[in-house]
């Protein structure tokens, strides 16, 4: 369980995250949606202790992220931010292997190798293992980063817009993979998503943020509705029921 209490963060005089309090239960996929500048990415980074908060606390399974040793947290919670620009030249396999760093401090065991192979296979990267990251396409690189996070094998996995750079086929595959991870291995997945319909089809829980505040929290059936979406994004929405999924239409 992740308990977020009264988190506030501001840069200069702009409040980016404003007194957010919420609880994320174990298991399932939670999506965070909201317009640009709503504070979604900042909130995610604060949960993962990448950015210190000004006020408030984040507890992961009872551990205060601001006070717990980094290596302890790294075995419980992982995060992948967007725009992962890397100057270091690593092969895909080397990168994924660093997902085991919190456990082995750089000296991989046979068990670690198994984890690495599994993560590579999961993302269809077996053939690319020996390639350097800077030789890959944007989508392949994104999958390699996700494989590293999977390899880290933490209970909580946080992703900031993981579908960036992915084409439709890979985007769908990625969301399915996250859902499988949640269902089959009992992982807790938190994703910031831009695409409302991916959130609608794959989430157990949706969190809506607006102007740095927590606006709504609930299952897709409560959130993906014309009135709430219109309030969130400030433009008209229609919502249709298609084969059991709620699909928002906003192109007109």
């Amino acid at each position, binding site marked *: 369980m992740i308990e977020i209490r009264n988190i506030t963060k501001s840069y200069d005089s702009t409040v980016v995250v404003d007194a957010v309090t919420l609880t994320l239960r174990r298991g399932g996929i939670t999506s965070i949606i909201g317009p640009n500048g709503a504070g979604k990415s900042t909130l995610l980074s604060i949960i993962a202790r*990448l950015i210190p908060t000004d006020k408030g606390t984040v507890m992961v399974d009872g551990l205060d992220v601001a006070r717990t040793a*980094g290596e302890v947290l*790294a075995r419980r919670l992982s995060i992948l931010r967007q725009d992962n620009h890397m*100057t270091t030249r690593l092969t895909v396999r080397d990168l994924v292997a*660093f997902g085991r*760093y919190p456990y082995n401090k750089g000296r991989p065991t046979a068990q670690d190798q198994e984890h690495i192979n599994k993560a590579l296979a999961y993302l269809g990267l077996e053939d690319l293992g020996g390639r350097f990251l800077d030789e890959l396409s944007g989508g392949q690189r994104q999958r390699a980063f996700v494989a590293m996070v999977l390899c880290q094998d933490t209970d909580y996995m946080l992703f900031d817009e993981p579908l960036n750079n992915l084409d439709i086929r890979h985007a769908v595959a990625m969301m399915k993979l996250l859902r499988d991870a949640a269902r089959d291995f009992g992982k807790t997945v938190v994703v910031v998503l831009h695409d409302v319909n991916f959130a609608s089809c794959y989430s157990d829980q949706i969190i809506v943020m607006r102007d740095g505040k927590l606006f709504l929290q609930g299952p897709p059936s409560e959130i993906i509705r014309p009135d709430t979406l219109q309030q969130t994004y400030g433009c008209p929405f229609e919502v249709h029921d298609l084969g059991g999924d709620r699909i928002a239409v906003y192109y007109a």
Partner: protein
Amino acid sequence: MKLFILALMVTLAAAIVSLFVGVSDVSLSALFSGEADEKMLMVFAVSRLPRTIALVLAGAGMAVAGTIMQMLARNRFAEPSTAGTVESASLGMLVVLLLAPDLPVMMKMLVASTFALAGTSLFLLILQRVPLRSPILVPLIGLMLGGVISACTTFFAYRFDLMQAMGAWTSGDFSTVLQGRYEVLWIAFVLTVASYVAADRFTVAGMGQDFATNLGLHYGRVLAFGLVVVSMVTASVVVTAGILPFIGLIVPNLVSIVMGDKLRHTLPWIALSGAALVLVCDIVGRTVNAPFEVPAGSVLGVIGSLFFLNMLLRRRLRAA
């Protein structure tokens, strides 16, 4: 592994050549057959051997320091002579010469290290203020910072009539390395080995602060350790032989192109290639205009700036 042994042999061969090249005759056969007279033995023990050891230690150390700098600045062009480190160490040397010229070499090195540490930290602080982190801006700022710091050094050297003395430690000249005057480089050696122990940490740090934090690494501590290694290695080289420009640029980049940046893998190669490169530069400098010597630093300056230009022009072609 086989390749590595081959490279080791090549470096060893260069070291052996270095032992027997010079103004006075020292020959292998004479040394072993016992025909060597006292003078020959002395030249060997007091000058040639220390010089060769110093070349190896300095080359390996600077190449590794360059690698670490590139990981910390997350920039391919960063190395002690493009980050203000070298110039700060020189300023430190000058300050010691002004205030306490009689300090033992060890203490001089420590003072120079402190200055190098301060200068490099300043460089990294300035980098944090470059929001775009344009990769080209990083070495540009480093070179300019180095220029400003060395202007300070030159000013005081000029004021206090130390220009000549300063020439000695800016030239990258190993001809003055004698027994008793290079041992401080063993500190660089210890730090080089310590960097290898921490190789994975540096690789992770090179992936960026967010990645490092996610993997549970204490980024601040790695940064601090890396800065200390870079500063002390640079200072010990500056104190003994002078400035060796661009090794930290040439070697890590070449190694990275061939085998990537997993330092656990590549650091031994980097250290070895650095040693070999400096050995070769010094041998070239000793033979090209014998009996006069061209400092290894001068040879490196030419090779290094050509290499640097090549890196930049390739980039330009790619951009165009």
